Each structure stands twice: as C-alpha cells, then as structure tokens.
C-alpha cells in the first residue's frame, strides 16, 4: 500500500475517532490515544502552557510535563524516557488549538518518525486542533445559550424562593420550594433533597422534589457515612459529586426509592456553620453535567437565608420566651420564694419552653434514690411530688450528671428507670441538666420526649434554669443558715444575759433546755448532771409536747448511753439506735436516739446537754456542734455561780476571820474572843448553833461559849459541863485531833444521829482547837436542815478553831511574858533592897563603927600629938563623908524610906534632894502595892534626874494621884525637850517596868516645850495573872 493511501486511511480513522468526541477534553484524549495507536507510539500527549491537556503512555497523572514541553516542533533528535519502555524518539507538532500547545508522540527506539509519519502527525494535529477548537466554540455557544436559559430560569426560581422567604413562610415550605425549583432548573435532576445535619451523624431530609412527583423520602433520617454526597459535603463543607453511586450509597442518602446513579450536593451554611445539604440526584451514572455545583450554591445561599431568617425569628421568640421565663423564675428566686415554688415554676417553664412531654425536677438523695420535687406532664400521677424512684445502676448518663454535665439520650435507653419509663410512658428521648450546688450535683431537671430527640441546645437552655434552681436552693439554705445562726445567737445571747445577770444555775439550765428545744426542734432536750454513780440527774428538761420530765429525776448515764459516751470521750456523742440493755431502757423513756455534748467544769465532766428523738429518725447531723455552743455557756453559768458562791463564802469567812483576828490581836479577854468566834463561825457556816468546848480533867467538857440562831439555845449553857458521847462528834475530835462529822438523816440509826434528831437536828460537826500541839478544845457546829453544812464544810470550821487556838495561845503568851517581866523587875527590886540593906546593915554600920572608934582614939590621943589628932580628925571626917556617900548610893539603889514610909515620904525625900526646885503634889495617902510604889518612885526619880542632867530645866513639877484603881504619875519640866525612848535614856527601862505592871507610859517632849511623862498603872490585879 502506498504511503499516501496509508496516511489517508489512518487520518480518516483518526478523524472518525476524534470527531465523535462531544467535548474538548474527550477530543484531546481521543487525539493522543489515536495518534499513539496510529503511529505505534508508546506515549503521546498534548501539552500547553505547562499543563497536560491529555496524555497516554505514562502512569496516571505522572506525565512529565516539562520533558514533554521540551520537545520542540521541527526539531529532531529528542528522546523521552517512557517508564517500562525506555528511551523513545520524540516528535512534537504545534497545535493551532489550544493556544501554545503541542502534540508530542514518543516511540520506543531512537529512530524518529518517517517523513510520512511526520506528515500524518501534522495532519492529525491539525484535525485535533480544529476539532478541539470547534468543540470549544460549540461548547461555549452551547454553554452560553444554556447558561442564559439556565440563568433566566434560575433567576426566576431564585426570585420565587426569595419572595417566599421574604413572605416569612416556614422554612419547611422554603425547603420544598427550593427542592422543586432546583429540580426544574437542573434539567438532569431526577430528584432533589434538602437535608439537615443533626448532631448525631445523621441527615434529616426536610424538603424534597422528585421528577416522579413522589418525594416520599422527605422527613426520613439517614445515618451518614460511606461514599455519598451528604457525607462528603459534611466532611469537606464544599460541594461534592459522586458520579457512580453504589446502591448502598444511594440508600444512605435516601436519594430516591430508585437507584440514583449520580448525585451532586452543596452545603448549606448558616452563620458560618454547616447546617445541611442540597442534593441533586440523577438516575444516570454521569447524569449531572459539570457546573451544577455552582447553580446549587445559589440555592443553598437562599436556603441558608431562609433558615437564618427563621432561626433568627425563632431564636428571637425563643430567647424572648426563655428570657421571660428565666426572669419570672429569677424574680421568684430574688423574692426568696420557697425553693418548692421555684421548683414548680422551673418545671412548668422548662416543660413549656422545650415542648417536653414530661418534665421532672428531682433531688439526689444520699441513699441513691431520687426524690421528685416537681413534675409536669402525664407522669404527674405516676410520679407525684415526693415520689422516690430508683434510677438503677445502669441508668445512662447518671455518672455524667453526677460529674456536673448535661446528658442527652436520644435513643430509648435501658436501665431500671428507663425500663419503667419506657414501659409505662413510652418515652423516646430525654435531656437532663444537673443542679450543681457548691460543686456537687444536688439534683437534676430532666425533660422527656415521646416523639424523637429534644431540640438541639436543650441542654444549654435547661442549664440556665438549673442554675437558677441552684441559686434558689443556695439562697434558701443561706437564709435558713442565717436564720438558724441568728436564732442560735439570740438563744445564746439570752442564756448569756441570764448568766451575766447572775441568774441561779437552775434558771440557766431551764433556759438552755428550752432554747435548745426551740432551736433544734428535738422531741426532748435536757441538761443533765453526772452523779457519782452511773446516773445522771436531769437539772432541766424540755419536751416538744410540753410534758417536761421533772427536774431532779435520775436517768441512766453509764456505758451504752449517750451521756456515758460523752463522759467517756469528753466529746459530743450520738446514739442513733439504742441497742442491747440500753434499748429497753431507752424505749422505756420513749427514746430512740440521742445526741449529747459535754459540760466540762474546770476540766472535769460535770454533765451534758442532750437532745433525744422519740422516733427512729436520729437528730440531724451537726446537732452535736450546735449543742456544744450551749455547753460552754452552761459551764460558765455553773462556774460563775460556783465562783460567786465561793467568793462570797470566802469573803464572809475572811471577814469573819478578820474580825476575830482583830479581837485576838487586840488582846481582848479570851471570853470575849470566844463569844465572837462562835458567833462569826455560826454565821459563816450557816449552821444553827456553834459552841466552844474545853475538856476538863474529869472527862467532861465545859461550854466556854455558844451562839445559836434560836433564842433559846438548846443543850448546856455557857459555863455548864457535860460528858461527850463516845463515838459522837466531840469525843473523836478530842481523841484524834481531827475534824469529825455526823449526818443524821432519817436512815441513820446511830445513837448520836438519833440524839441529834431528838434535838431536831440533822447533823453536827466538830473541829479541834489545838494549842501548841495539844488539843485545847473543840468547836462544835450543829444544824437542823439537812445539807446545811456541805460535805467538807467541817474543814472550814478548822479555820476558826485555828484562830481560837491563836487567840488562846496569844492570851497565854501575853500573860506569861508580863509575868516574866514582872518577875525580873521584882527580882531586881529585891536585889536592890537586899544590897541596900546589906550596905545599910553591913558596910555602913562597920564604917560608922570605924568612925566612932577613930573618934574614940582621937579622944584618947595626947594633945601633944596634935599632928596625929589632926590626922585622925581628917580620917574621921573623910570616913563620915564616905558613909554619907554610901548611904546616898544605897538610897539610889532602893530607897529604904520607900519601903519604910511609902511613896509620899519617899517622893518628898527625892524632891528635897533634887538639884532642881520641884513642885510636888502627891495625892496617894494609902500604901500601894510595892511594885507600884517602886515603879512610881523610879519614874519620878529618873524623870527628875533627866530634867536636871539633860533637859537644862530650871524647875520641875510632879503630880501623883491614885484614883479609880489607877495610879497616875505625871512629871513635867521646863527644859529643852526632845527626849525619846531611843536616846539611851532610862525611859525604856521605865516603860518596861510600867508595861510589866499592865500600865502605860506616855512621853511628850517637843523641842523647847519641856518634857512631860505620864504613867498610868492599874491598881486592880484581878485580870492580871498572878506572878509566879
């Protein structure tokens, strides 16, 4: 066959293949394929401007555009490496269309095309280019025409839809309209759908159109997934196309009952978020021309606008509704309405707002059950307020709610509650939002639907209400807490005021029991005091029924009781259920459970404040702490009362003791002190009689003093004697030296007790008076009222007996001292008198004798011995002087004239001998006791000597007067004064002498005012212990 013929035939074949192409791209592909086939090439391509228009011979998408473009038309020798073939001689020819394009063929080997083949290639290139250009023009014209028609139709369609939207119809109407318009505008469409994505991976078809007029799929929901446009659009949020839909993919998008073979979808974006999809389906595999995506986009925008409008309207209305509802609830909350009212309001508002079929507000109880607090819907009957339901372990979403998160259940769930609900109420879905209080889930508000899932966002909207509920509860609790605190504070203040007002503890106890009763609303409240046995005395009690237990009754307070527990631990305690022995005891008292807090005084358990419940329900938690606030007050009251009492007692006692001590110190006569002591002791101890007894050597006791409240003191009068009962009160005191006591209640059959009772007495106590380690006497207290002297009160008796002992000891010591000093002075006086007598009778007499003998010798001395006579005369004269001096000396030691003539002559002699002129006035004619006379003599003697020697006085006066059993001696001078006892004068010795005699010396010696000394000496000696 000739080359030309061959080429013609090949070219004809090429033209035939290329000319059937109906668009430019197909023509290009046909051109390269046929060129390769006809030239037996391994690869061929049309490249233009860096792009592959069509290529064969390379793996898909891997044609080397740069290499291919490098092959230049009209230039031989290019080799291209074709994978799987190797080097291929390559030839390029220019194409007239597309612009700047070349057709390149590459054939294995290094030999280029023959001229004939090259010619064929050029021919094919020309055909291809012409065909492509023609198709382009046709395409463009067709597109333009179709575009215009489409545009007109589409614009009209869009306008109609827009008009609908503006008229504000429901979105569903817009969806159907859009579906229909799209169906009309897109000629290839067999079915159109408007779908809305939900949050659960499904698409709901809300509008649709079918060429067959049966869009029965509208309203259906289909799960997403797989290779279909609805899924692809959602995944990418751009238009998607699937040209060869599988049956499953078709079913997955519910495109039609029939098998749509291809589909295009475009996203509907509302407010920046993908809302849904408009889908067009065709029954043909490639039924949907390119560009549909763009057309769809115009409609999706309209749909979006319609939705946005509707949503805006709906949202506005919803928001307005919701805001109004929230405001109503918030107002309730702000008005401090009871939580129950808020619960009801919330249930109602939520029920209405969310179009719920059932709505419930429930509280999570600690036992795992839920208590219905508010309910709306048909379940009002089956689950009334207060109904307690068990959510069961597998209740879906409970854990989520407990962790504070909302729950949405769109499918009928399983679980105890769920089963019940489904069976009874046919509930399909619900949304619940937790009521979170202080970080803890307190309860929930739940809305239920019988008709598919609740609206999107229901969780958030519920959340707004649950927050209000939480606030209402918190407020109510806060108010309740506040009121409780205020009540408590008021109660505590009232009690504290009572205490401050020094109310008696009994009154405080009663007040506390009442306040606790009012505050804590128990069945019973009480204040109990521990007794030494395992019992507790009710010192105050309160009952909710008003039937208070009598004060003073004893109740068990040992192990197993709440009081026992408190006592054991020192802390508040509770017994929620009495058990064992205590159960019966508690039941007997009608008590089921109790809480008590300790009253501790000075670190020791004193008693309890308790509340008791007569029912099985124990007092609420926190009762312990609230009770404890009162226990301190009670303790304070008791301590205060005790302190006051003690203080008063101590003060009284101290006062009494001081008074007695004063008496003792004043050195009053023992009898006076004794009288005072018994009187004070009785008053301080608050007993009926107190007596001071002194044992006598004959085994009796003498009554030294007695004081009694009764005008007629019983028993033996002062001065009387009696024999104490053995083993009574007095005898043991004397025997043991320790206090003794006998209480004589009716039950005491002891003899002494009986004796006491005979006297109308109920008790007696005695304490020893111990002087210098020896029992000196007994102080006895007797009382008629039981308990008048508390246990241990006899110890206080001792304080007085000690004082008595001191008084006794003082009196005795004083007497002894005075006696001792008197003895000393008397001894000194006697010694002086003996010396004076000795001097007078001995030395003086011998000197006188000696002088007489000398005179005798002188007389016999010869006169010639004049010198000797003179000397003798001198000796005798000297001897007489010595005798005179001795006499004078002896007189100073003890004036003999005092002993011989008494005070008056002695004083006259003294005045005569004084170096000063002395005015003497003595009015004491009778002889006075010797110590008095001696004392008076020495006082005047010393005073005159001082006046002469130290006072530089010019004269002195002496007055002595004995009257009213007192000798008064007064000596006065006109000297310089300034004398005192500390100046080494003889004044100290004078005072000692005066005091020894029970007298008193007073010195007045102002400077330049002279000195006067006054001495008073008692002349009566009855109270003065006899010396010796």
């Amino acid at each position, binding site marked *: *066959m000739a080359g030309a013929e*061959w080429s013609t*035939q*090949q*070219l*004809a*074949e*090429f*033209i*035939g*293949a290329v000319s*059937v192409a109906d668009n430019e791209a197909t023509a290009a*592909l046909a051109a390269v*394929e046929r060129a*390769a*086939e*006809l*030239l*037996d*090439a*391994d*690869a*061929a391509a049309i490249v233009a401007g860096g792009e592959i228009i069509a290529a*064969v*011979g*390379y*793996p*898909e998408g*891997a044609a080397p555009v740069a290499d291919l473009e490098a092959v230049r038309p009209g230039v031989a020798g290019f080799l291209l490496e*074709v*994978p*799987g*073939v190797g080097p291929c001689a390559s030839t390029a020819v220019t194409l007239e269309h597309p612009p700047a394009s070349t057709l390149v063929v590459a054939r*294995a080997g290094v030999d280029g095309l023959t001229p004939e*083949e090259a010619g064929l290639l050029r021919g094919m290139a020309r055909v291809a280019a012409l065909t492509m250009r023609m198709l382009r023009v046709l395409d463009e014209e067709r597109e333009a025409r179709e575009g215009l028609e489409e545009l007109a139709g589409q614009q009209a369609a869009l306008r109609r839809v827009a008009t609908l939207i503006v008229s504000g119809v429901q979105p569903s109407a817009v969806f159907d309209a859009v579906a229909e318009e799209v169906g009309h505008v897109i000629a290839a469409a067999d079915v159109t759908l408007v779908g809305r994505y939900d949050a659960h991976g499904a698409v709901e078809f809300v509008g649709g159109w079918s060429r067959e007029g049966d869009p029965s799929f509208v309203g259906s929901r289909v799960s997403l997934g797989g290779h279909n446009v609805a899924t692809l659009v959602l995944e990418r949020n751009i238009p998607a196309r699937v040209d*060869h839909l599988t049956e499953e993919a078709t079913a997955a998008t519910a495109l039609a009952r029939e098998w749509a073979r291809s589909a295009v979808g475009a996203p509907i974006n509302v407010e920046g978020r993908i809302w849904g999809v408009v889908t067009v389906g065709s029954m043909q*595999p*490639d039924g949907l021309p390119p560009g549909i995506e763009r057309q769809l986009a115009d409609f999706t925008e309209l749909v979006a606008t319609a939705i946005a409008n509707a949503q805006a309207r709906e949202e506005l209305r919803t928001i307005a509704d919701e805001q109004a509802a929230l405001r109503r609830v918030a107002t309730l909350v702000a008005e401090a309405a009871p939580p129950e009212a808020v619960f009801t309001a919330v249930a109602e508002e939520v029920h209405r707002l969310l179009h719920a079929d059932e709505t419930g507000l429930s509280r999570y109880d600690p036992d795992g059950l839920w208590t219905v607090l508010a309910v709306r819907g048909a379940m009002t009957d089956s689950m009334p307020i207060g109904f307690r339901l068990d959510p069961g372990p597998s209740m879906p979403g409970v854990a989520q709610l407990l962790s504070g998160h909302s729950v949405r259940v769109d499918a009928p769930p399983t679980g105890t509650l769920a089963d019940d609900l489904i069976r009874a109420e046919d509930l399909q879905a619900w949304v619940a939002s937790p009521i979170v209080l202080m970080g803890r889930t307190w309860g929930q508000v739940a809305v239920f639907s019988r008709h598919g899932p609740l609206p999107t966002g229901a969780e958030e909207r519920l959340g707004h209400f649950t927050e209000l509920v939480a606030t209402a509860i918190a407020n109510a609790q806060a108010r309740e807490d506040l009121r409780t605190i205020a009540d408590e504070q008021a109660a505590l203040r009232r009690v504290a005021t009572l205490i401050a007002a020094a109310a008696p503890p009994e009154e405080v106890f009663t007040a506390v029991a009442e306040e606790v009763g009012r505050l804590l609303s128990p069945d019973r409240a009480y204040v109990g005091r521990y007794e030494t046995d395992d019992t507790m005395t009710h010192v105050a009690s309160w009952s909710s029924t008003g039937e208070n237990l009598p004060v003073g009754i004893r109740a068990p307070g040992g192990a197993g009781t709440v009081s026992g527990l408190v006592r054991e631990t020192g802390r508040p305690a509770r017994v929620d259920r009495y058990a064992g022995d205590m159960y019966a005891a508690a039941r007997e008292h009608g008590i089921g459970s109790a809480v008590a807090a300790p009253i501790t005084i000075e670190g020791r358990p004193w008693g309890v404040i308790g509340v008791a419940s007569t029912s099985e329900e124990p007092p609420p938690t926190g009762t312990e702490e609230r009770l404890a606030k009162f226990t301190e007050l009670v303790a304070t009251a008791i301590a205060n009362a005790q302190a006051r009492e003690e203080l008063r007692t101590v003060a009284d006692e101290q006062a009494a003791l001081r008074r007695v001590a004063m008496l003792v110190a004043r050195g009053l006569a023992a009898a006076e002190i004794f009288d005072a002591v018994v009187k004070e002791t009785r008053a301080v101890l608050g007993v009926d009689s107190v007596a001071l007894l002194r044992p006598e050597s004959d085994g009796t006791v003498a009554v030294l003093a007695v004081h009694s409240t009764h005008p007629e003191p019983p028993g033996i009068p002062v001065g009387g004697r009696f024999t104490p009962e053995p083993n009574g009160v007095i005898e043991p005191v004397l025997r043991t030296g320790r206090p003794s006591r006998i209480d004589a209640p009716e039950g005491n059959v002891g003899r002494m007790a009986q004796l006491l009772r005979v006297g109308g007495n109920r008790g007696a106590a005695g304490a020893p008076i111990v002087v210098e380690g020896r029992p000196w006497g007994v102080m006895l207290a007797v009382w008629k009222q039981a308990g008048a002297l508390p246990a241990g009160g006899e110890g206080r008796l001792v304080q007085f007996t000690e004082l008595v002992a001191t008084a006794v000891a003082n009196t005795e010591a004083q007497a002894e001292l005075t006696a001792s000093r008197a003895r000393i002075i008397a001894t000194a006086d006697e010694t002086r008198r003996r010396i004076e007598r000795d001097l007078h009778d001995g030395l003086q007499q011998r000197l006188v004798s000696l002088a007489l003998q000398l005179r005798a010798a002188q007389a016999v001395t010869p006169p010639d011995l004049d010198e000797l006579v003179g000397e003798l005369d001198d000796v005798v004269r000297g001897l007489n002087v010595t005798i005179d001096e001795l006499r004078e000396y002896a007189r100073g030691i003890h004036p003999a004239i005092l002993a011989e003539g008494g005070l008056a002559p002695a004083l006259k002699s003294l005045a005569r001998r004084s170096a000063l002129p002395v005015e003497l006035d003595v009015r004491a004619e009778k002889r006075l006791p010797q110590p008095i006379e001696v004392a008076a003599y020495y006082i005047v003697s010393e005073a005159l000597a001082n006046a002469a020697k130290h006072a530089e006085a010019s004269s002195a006066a002496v007055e002595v007067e004995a009257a009213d059993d007192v000798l008064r001696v007064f000596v006065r001078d006109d000297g310089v004064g300034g004398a005192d006892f500390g100046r080494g004068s003889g004044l100290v010795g004078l005072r000692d002498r005066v005091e020894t005699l029970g007298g008193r010396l007073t010195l007045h010696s102002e400077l330049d005012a002279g000195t006067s000394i006054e001495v008073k000496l008692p002349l009566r000696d009855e109270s003065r212990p006899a010396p010796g």
Partner: protein
Amino acid sequence: MQPTRWVGVGSAGGPAEGAGAHATDEALLAEDAKLLIVFCSPTFDLPALIRGIRTRAGDVPLIGCTTAGEIVATGPRDASVVVTAFGGDGFAVETACAKGASRDLREAGATAARCVPARTDLPHKALLLLSDGLAGDQQQIVRGAYGVLGAGVPLVGGCAGDDLKMTRTFQFHDDEVLTDAVVAAGIASDAPLGIGVHHGWRRVGQPMLVTSSAGTRVFTLDDGPALDVYLAHLGLDQPADGDREWLARLALTHPFGLSRPGGEEKVRLISGGDFGDRSLSCVAEVPQGALVWVMEGDEESVLEATEAAAGASVAALDGRPPLGMVAFDCIARRGVLGDAGIRVEIDRLAALAAGAPIAGFYTYGEIARTRGVRGFHNQTLVVLSVA
C-alpha cells in the same frame, strides 16, 4: 533466601460446588496462595461453584470468568472448571473489579487497572484482565488501563465466553458473580512474566473502506451495506432465512483485519449481523475511514501462530523455565482448528511449557498489550508464561 513462587492448576467437572472444591484442591500446591484464576463453563451453578472454591481456598483473592471452552494440559474441555493458583512470596497480587462496565468501558478499564501492587522488590508486573466481551468496545478497556498504568505494565487477558451463545457472560471477583464487569488481578513478581500474542490469519481479497461505522457497528463498506459487501467478498449470497447462527459460524472463521503500520493486522471478530439494516457487529471498534480486509486462516497457520505466541511468552522469561502457562485462545481459532486441531494446539503448548501446568480458555476476545497503546485482539492466541 529466594522468594518462592508456585503455580498450580486443577480442573474438574460434575456438580458445581464439588467441582469447584475439587479443582481448587488440585490447584493449591501449597498454603500460601496469592491468587486464584477460575475459568469455567457457564453451565455451572456459578454461585455454588464459587462457594465450593472459596470453601477450600478461603479468602485468597479470586478472579475468573465463564468461557467458551476450558483449556488444560490434557486437552480442551467443556462443562468443566479450571482453577489456576499463583502462590509463594515471590508473588504479590491485588484484585479489582469494575461493575457496570458498559456505562463507561474506558473508566472500567481504568478502575480495574488500579490494583497493581506498588512493590519495588517485585519488579516484574502485569495486569490480568477478564472482561465481558459482549459489553462493547474492549479496546476502550485497554485504553483506560493504559491511561492509568502507562507503558510500564503489560496487560494480558481475555473476554469471557458463554459457549458461543453470545447472550450473557459472567465474571467472578472473590465471592461475586457478575455480568458487565471487568475484573483484574495486578500481579507483581520477582521473576519475569512473559506475554506472547499471535493470530495466524491472512488477508483475503481486496481491502474495503469503512465508509460508515459507529464504534463496533459497521454500517457500510465501500459505500455498500456492510453485511452484503462482506458476504460478497466471501462469494456468498445471503441465506433466505437470515440465519444468525449461520452468520456467526461464518464470521468466526472470517474476521475483519485492520491494517496496522507495524505489519500484523488487527483482527476484529465479527460477532453478528443485522439482517434488517445490513450492518455488521464486531467485538471491538472498527473506525470509520479505516481499511479492512476479510481474513481467513487454516489449521497450519493457526498452529504456527500458537507456537509463535507461546514461544514468545516463554522467550520473554529471560531463559527461565515457565512455572505455568495461561492461554487466552480465541474461540474463532477453535472453529478453524476443529476438535483434532485444538488437541494438537494444546499439545504444542504443553511441549513449550515443558511440563509446567497449563490453563486457559476459549475467549471472545484477547488482551495483550506489551508495546504501544493497542492491546485488544481478536482471533488471536495470547499466552502468559509465568517464571
């Protein structure tokens, strides 16, 4: 250690499920099968047959098709099943399937082609295609596959048959029994895969110009009604009753040949004629403007082609002995050779296979693309030798 490779072939007849199981048992030489290729008669209960095979082979990738006669080393068969197994680490196989191929044969070819394992360690690759020969222009399938794979991966395979009923063929992919489908196995091997193709037809008389055609339909030749011009070239008159079977038998041994620049004609099987509009139908495109000849062959030329094709496939193994041989033999050749002839043909194949197992079937069209774009053949023997 060298990766292992093995090829096993089993065949059986009888009830479908048992036959499938039996043939599979025979083919599975070892446990590490990578691919099963099933050729069977359309007379079987096909789902049961596949079930029988899968019962034994588990989920080993499977492709296959119905035939117009099966080929094994022992000879041609009818109403049987032939199972070929490729196994061992030296092979890597993926399969693909394009359903509804007639909607877009080119796209179906492309879809089927996207299964060649990207294994650089197994450098030798081929795509085995089995298609529905009644579904339209099979060259479009080749173009689609070539567009995806390029020149680097040879294509081999054939069109399914239905014992010459020319009504409906079936393709198999794993558990599925399909019609109007392209099934494919992308094979990667560490040893060469040799493909040979030859027909052995020769031109008869003068060429004719295709003056009017559309796709596989030829309306006029030399401006005359195609059927009449064709029959006239063969010196035959139209039978009075317009017997289609007569025409089919005649066309089987007298295909069109399209001239090619490279030398060997592209043979186009004529699948039938329309006595009404006097057109002819071919199993592949006969482009308008092309020159065609009526072709004919005799036993000798056909058998020479057999040796040429099989020899070329073995020669492509770089001197390695074949592990197995898969033949795609045009049903027309069977018509030319007759029963005795095809026995001889298979003996010659067996001789070249040198003891390696042989499997194959009589096809309605053959695919062999080793060079260039063209790859669909008629009246041809295509042999795949596996080393």
